[in-house]
C-alpha cells in the first residue's frame, strides 16, 4: 500500500530510496487509481503555491541604501590598513576620505538631469579635476565600481519617479534626502565646504520634485546637456580606474 505521505515524497523525488521510487513508478503504470491519487495530490500541491508578493517601494529604497552603505563601508574598511601599506597606496587611501562627497557630487549631476537645474559649475568639476590631476589621486577599482553603480542606481530611481504615485515618490525622495544629509556631513568632514553647500541646496530641489510630475519635452535640451556632463564625469572615473589597474 502506498499512502499519501509516500506519494508526497515521490512527487518531490526526495526522501525515498531510488529503488523505492522505481517501484512506485512501476505501480503507477499498473494502477490507474494510484495514478489518479497522485494527479490529485499534485493538483492540490500546485494550488498551494503562495501568491507572488511585491515589496513596498520604501523597502526597495532601504535595500539599495543598505547595499550602497555596505559597499562604501567595505571601501572604508581598507583604510584601517593604512599603516601597513607601502607608500604608493597612500594617495589611494587619501582618496577614500573624499569618496562620499565625490559620490554626492556625481549624484547631484545625475539628479540635475531630471530636475532641469544646472549645478554651479565649480561645485563638481573643479574639485574632481583637482583630485584627478594632482595629489596622487587614484581611485581603487572597487571604489569606482561602487560609484558607477550608485550613479546608475540613482539615475534609474529618478527615472522611475514618474511611475510612482505620490506616496511612492515621497518615499524615494525622502530616502534620497536622508542620504544627502549624510553626504553633507561627509563633505564637511572632508573639508569640502563648497560641496556641502551645494548638497544642502539640493534639498530644496528635491522638495520641488515632490509635486512635479516629471520633466517634459521643454526640458529635453537641458537633460541632454546634463547627461553629457554626467558622461564626462563617468568617463573620467573609468579612465582613472584603468590607469590604476595597469599600475598594479
Amino acid at each position: 500500500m502506498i499512502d499519501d505521505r509516500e506519494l508526497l515524497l515521490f512527487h518531490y523525488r526526495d526522501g525515498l530510496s531510488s529503488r523505492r521510487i522505481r517501484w512506485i513508478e512501476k505501480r503507477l503504470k499498473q494502477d490507474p487509481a494510484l495514478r489518479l491519487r497522485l494527479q490529485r495530490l499534485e493538483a492540490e500541491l500546485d494550488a498551494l503555491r503562495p501568491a507572488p508578493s511585491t515589496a513596498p517601494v520604501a523597502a526597495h529604497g532601504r535595500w539599495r541604501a543598505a547595499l550602497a552603505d555596505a559597499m562604501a563601508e567595505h571601501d572604508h574598511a581598507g583604510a584601517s590598513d593604512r599603516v601597513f601599506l607601502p607608500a604608493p597606496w597612500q594617495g589611494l587611501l587619501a582618496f577614500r576620505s573624499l569618496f562620499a562627497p565625490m559620490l554626492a557630487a556625481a549624484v547631484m549631476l545625475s539628479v540635475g538631469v531630471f530636475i532641469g537645474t544646472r549645478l554651479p559649475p565649480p561645485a563638481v568639476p573643479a574639485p574632481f579635476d583637482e583630485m584627478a590631476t594632482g595629489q596622487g589621486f587614484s581611485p581603487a577599482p572597487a571604489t569606482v565600481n561602487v560609484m558607477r553603480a550608485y550613479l546608475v542606481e540613482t539615475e534609474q530611481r529618478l527615472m522611475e519617479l514618474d511611475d510612482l504615485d505620490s506616496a511612492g515618490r515621497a518615499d524615494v525622495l525622502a530616502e534620497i534626502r536622508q542620504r544627502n544629509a549624510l553626504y553633507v556631513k561627509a563633505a564637511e568632514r572632508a573639508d569640502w565646504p563648497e560641496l556641502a553647500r551645494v548638497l544642502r541646496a539640493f534639498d530644496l530641489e528635491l522638495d520641488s520634485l515632490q509635486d512635479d510630475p516629471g520633466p517634459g519635452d521643454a526640458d529635453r535640451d537641458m537633460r541632454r546637456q546634463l547627461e553629457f556632463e554626467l558622461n564626462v564625469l563617468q568617463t573620467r572615473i573609468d579612465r582613472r580606474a584603468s590607469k590604476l589597474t595597469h599600475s598594479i
Partner: protein
Amino acid sequence: MVDHRHSSAVCATDFHQALRRSGDRWYAACLNITRAPALAEDAVQDGLVLAWRKRHQFNGEAAIDTWIHRIVVNAALQLLRRNKAMVDRGPTEVEHVSEPIELHTPADARARDEWLYALERLVAVLTDYERICFVLKHVEEWQLSEIADETGNSVNSVKQALFRAVKKLRVGLADWRIEA
C-alpha cells in the same frame, strides 16, 4: 530569456541589477517564511549585505540572483531562529478531515484570487516549523536534508512536519472548495 550567469568576479553593478530584477522575489520568499513584512524586509537587507561581504565566494556556477536568493532565505531563517520559531512542537490538532477534492473544477480567475486569499489564512494555521518545512520544500525546493541541517532537526522530523503541513493545507483546500 537573459542568462544572468557571470564569471566569479561580481561587482557592485551586478548586485544592484540583481536587486532590481529579483528584489520582489527575495522578499516574497522571506515573507513566506516569516509571514511578517517587517521581518521579511529585514531579512532581504541582512542577506543582501551579507552576500556583498561574501561576494568573493560566488563561483559563478549559479546566477547571481539565485546565489543571493539562497543567502537571503538563510537570513530569514536566521531571524526566525532568533525568535526560536524552528522548534518542532509535534503535531497539532486538525479540526476535521475531509477527502481532498479535485482542484481544477469550476476554477475561474476570480475563484483563483479568492483561493490565494484563503491560502494566506490557511498557512496561518501551520506552526512556524511546519510552515518553514513546507515553504523550503515546496516553494524553495530545498532537499529534506538541507532543511534538516538548516533547522537543526532530523530529516525524519522535517518529513513529519511536511506531512502535517500538507495535510492541514489539503484539508483547508477541501473546505474552501466545499464553501465555494
